[in-house]
């Protein structure tokens, strides 16, 4: 479990969540702004038990879902699965280097978009391949870079290695 000394990390996670809704909802930047919610869940998942991570994923997914008319619950399901997998990934991969984080966040965000696509079928069937192989990876790179940058800023402030 997390210790009390970890509160700056949770400030970072909270900041990413607030930043996500600030950029996407309050300012209305849409796809111009990176997805910060998925990196927030994935980063939190690396420091919590699977059950806690799944709870965080469910809660944040519902926040996102409340804006969707078509697939309420799709993001909740997706982020719950991702958070649990992210938490269990510590059993397989130890380390928090920038390169590892980049790959981890990239794969996590891509998997997020694939699951969301399967649950809600956002784009039309004709463009699904282009969407999954071109647009989703681009969005994943964008989100991963944003997550790594936020983590680097956190480490420089907190002094964590």
């Amino acid at each position, binding site marked *: *479990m*997390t*210790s009390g000394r*970890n509160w700056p990390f949770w400030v970072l996670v909270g900041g990413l969540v607030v930043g996500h*809704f*600030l950029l*996407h*909802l*309050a*300012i*209305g*930047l*849409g796809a111009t*702004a990176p*997805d910060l919610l998925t990196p927030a869940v994935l980063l939190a998942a690396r*420091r*919590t*038990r*699977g*059950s806690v*991570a*799944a*709870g965080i*994923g*469910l809660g944040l*997914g*519902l*926040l*996102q*879902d*409340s*804006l*969707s*008319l*078509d*697939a*309420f*619950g*799709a*993001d*909740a*399901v997706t982020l*719950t*699965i991702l958070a*649990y997998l992210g938490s269990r990934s*510590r059993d397989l991969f130890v380390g*928090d280097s920038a390169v590892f984080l980049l790959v981890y966040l990239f794969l996590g965000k891509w998997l997020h978009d694939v699951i*969301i696509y399967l*649950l*809600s079928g*956002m*784009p*039309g069937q004709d*463009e699904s391949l282009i969407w999954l192989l071109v647009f989703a990876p681009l969005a994943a790179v964008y989100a991963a870079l944003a997550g790594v940058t936020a983590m680097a800023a956190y480490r420089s402030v907190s002094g964590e290695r």
Partner: protein
Amino acid sequence: MGNYFDGTRRGRRRDAAVAGGFLLLAVFLLLLPASYQSPLRSAIRGTALRPFLAMQAELAERRVRSEDVSQLRAERDSLAAVVAAQASLAEENRRLRGLLGLRGRAQPEFRPAELIRAGVPGAESTFFIDIGAKEGVVVGSPVLAPGGLLGVITEVDEHTAQGIDWTHPHFRASAMTSDGDATGIVEPRRGRFREEDLLTLTSAPFHTDIRPGTRVVTTGRGGIYPRGIPLGTVVGIDEADTGWRKSYLLRPAVRPEGVTHVIVAIQREGQGGDLSPLWQPDEAADTGTTAAGTAAEGQRP
């Protein structure tokens, strides 16, 4: 990093069971009927996301103040002209019907509103407006922009409402050519990019040829959209369906991405109304000039 996990097998099993419970709850929410999901969505929007929605409304207000005043004035005047023309036509219609001894026909009323976009994945083709049930908005209220039909309201809270625009896959409207020769159903047709989205008039009779440039408007059937609201202009034939039906591509009357202010038609059940005169094209029909637009020009200082 510290040890964040309970390493025992039993602890892990318990952990997986709790996570599985959360997943089941999420799946349950996903599979809930839309009528049960709606109050949950409203509750979350009204609590956790309320500050962000309020901030967006505030920012939109500030943006409006700093934007090009002449463009905004033109948009506002066009909307005002639609309302004003509606009022004068309603009065004229009432007098004529009175002279003929006919009962008054119900017409929708209008409420101006500001349009807000959520800008998150899953909320594409949807929008919020800053008026709701208190102002008379109901599920199914048509949302109009100066050019024509933008979309329809699908969920109503006390002071806000959410709707879909015509690019949403569920959007459908009963439509006809402005001369009434051909009828069909208008539905969205996705482009490679959202800016390339178009409309199609499907199920048009095969024997009728609709010329490019013909305006397509709502028929008023179905009880959702009043008659005569512009949907788009025919660009060309889309496909001929095995000798029975034809589909036509339409250039939409309204591009959703450019709309910031709208009017919402408040109509009671069973009251259709005819809005054709508001958008009657003048001689330069293909330029998109409308009676409402012309009236708006006259209003500008």
